[in-house]
């Protein structure tokens, strides 16, 4: 593991990218995040209750970056009063729909609105993922329709399958694209010391994400 030469002086830091994954129930949010973090399709997933968390450390241009994925419950009742806490300091949003279920695509405007209410609008990177491409025969949401929607909301579109082994690289590439994009957008990165030894230091405003809404 070759690490990039770090300037002497400052403590070692590992930058953290926080992404939230949202979309209707059953579109495959848990499978996608599991696929990216564990490199395989989970054999039994259950309904997510509240918020689950997964992470993976990747290396981009010689720098170690921790990608945190917050996997949320799809059922509407969890959005309002429960999940909002986890929208804070988010660096990127991943919207997911199921290409074999039109209703999950039609819910996207509501999810986009939900994000806007948490101040996560067009100013932070957002991507759209159409999942379950292994079920091509059951497609209900055609690519051109999804592409049009993605263009309207200035988001890149990815169609993929968390299940199909051949798409492993693809799932990885989706999250890495986002990570690269964020890495070059330094003001948006939340960084913190690798080892938090400064328990004596009282932090009046604990870890305020340095965010940029320019």
């Amino acid at each position: 593991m070759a690490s990039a030469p770090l300037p002497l002086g400052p403590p070692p830091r590992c930058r953290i990218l926080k992404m939230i994954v949202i979309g209707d129930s059953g579109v495959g949010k848990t499978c996608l995040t599991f696929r990216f973090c564990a490199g395989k399709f989970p054999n039994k997933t259950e309904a997510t209750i509240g918020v689950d968390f997964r992470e993976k450390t990747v290396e981009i241009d010689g720098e170690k970056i921790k990608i945190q994925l917050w996997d949320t419950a799809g059922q509407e009742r969890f959005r309002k009063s429960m999940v909002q806490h986890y929208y804070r300091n988010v660096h990127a949003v991943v919207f997911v729909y199921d290409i074999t279920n039109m209703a999950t695509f039609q819910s996207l405007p509501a999810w986009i609105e939900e994000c806007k209410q948490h101040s996560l609008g067009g100013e932070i990177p957002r991507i759209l993922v159409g999942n379950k491409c292994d079920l091509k025969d059951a497609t209900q949401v055609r690519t051109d329709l999804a592409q049009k929607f993605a263009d309207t909301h200035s988001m890149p579109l990815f169609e993929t399958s968390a299940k199909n082994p051949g798409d492993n690289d693809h799932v990885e590439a989706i999250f890495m694209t986002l990570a690269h994009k964020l890495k070059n957008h330094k003001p948006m990165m939340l960084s913190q010391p690798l080892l938090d030894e400064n328990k004596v230091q009282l932090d009046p405003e604990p870890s305020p994400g340095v965010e940029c809404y320019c």
Partner: protein
Amino acid sequence: GTLQDNSTLLQFKFFYILKLDYESKRKRKVAEIQHALNSSPVDVAALRRMAISEGGLLTDEIRSKVWPKLLNVNTDDLPPKPGPELRENNKDYQQVLLDVQRSLRRFPPRMPDAEREVLQEQLIDSILVVLKRNPQLHYYQGYHDIVVTFLLVVGERMATALVEKLSTHHLRDFMDPTMDNTKHILNYLMPIIESVNPELHDFMQRAEVGTIFALSWLITWFGHVLSDFRHVVRLYDFFLACHPLMPIYFAAVIVLYREHQVLESECDMASVHHLLSQIPQDLPYETLISRAGDLFVQFPPSELSKEAIQQENTAVSTFKDFELVSAQQRPDAVLRRRLREQPQRERRSNITAARTGTRRLMKLAVMGLTVALGAAAFAVANGALEWAAKFELQLFP
């Protein structure tokens, strides 16, 4: 060699005696439960004590007789099995289907697919029947984890009846149109932790971890996160016999039990959330159950309600709404009722300290534990169980 053989033999004898002791205690408990069931009227208070005390209700066969009594459900008058029309134009069907199809882990691992599929169909029906008969109740993801537990223990029709009662009482707050009241109940978690361990509390506050890690624990009574079904039903014995807020005390006890792990983790939301939401599968359940009972008596909801309210922005508005709802046993309603009694209680606060000692004795009586059965006895019993397993003594068939 001989010396070691001797010591092994001695150990064996020692644990064999413990096993005999355990079996005689167990037999006595089965007899006591039978006696309470056969009394006229049924001795529900005794059944409650049995459900709380060590080992709970012991077997699913006993549970299927005692759970209806704890919920005061008449088993002669069960809802009829629904027809196919139940699923037609049903607003909840799609979501329930989606969640039940994915609930494979809730069924015994060696169960044949065909058998499991029949149970999954029954699970869908049970849920939909309760929702249809009670339009004020709203389905939530996780409700299926509760219903499946009842289905596996008492069968479809009885499960429907028990869950219907539970949904209009213990689970009522979780089934509101929104989750505001669920959030309110979660707000009790940090004050309980603070009362016992301020350092741990402050660490968690600094990490801004929130309480969502405990959401699935609360609304599924731990059915969603524990993989061993025996642990799940043991907790259900406990919760069915207790105050509807007991699950939040049990959640606090788990966090407190993991104090060192939490304090050693990095003080940020992700690390602490991740650590706490991965629940260890080898928790010392009997000890934790006893501790949760202790905490409930030492720090009853009335003494925590003020702090819980302070954590919440919407308390005032929802409080008004709540005045209109008078459903008994809704956990949140109990909290708010106690809150109104607060001023009177505060006047009596000077005698609180004196009462704590009495409370502990009361609690022991309430929980059906004897003073002699302290932590040491638990430790010995647990050790015996682990050891006995190697000799296939099968204490828990």
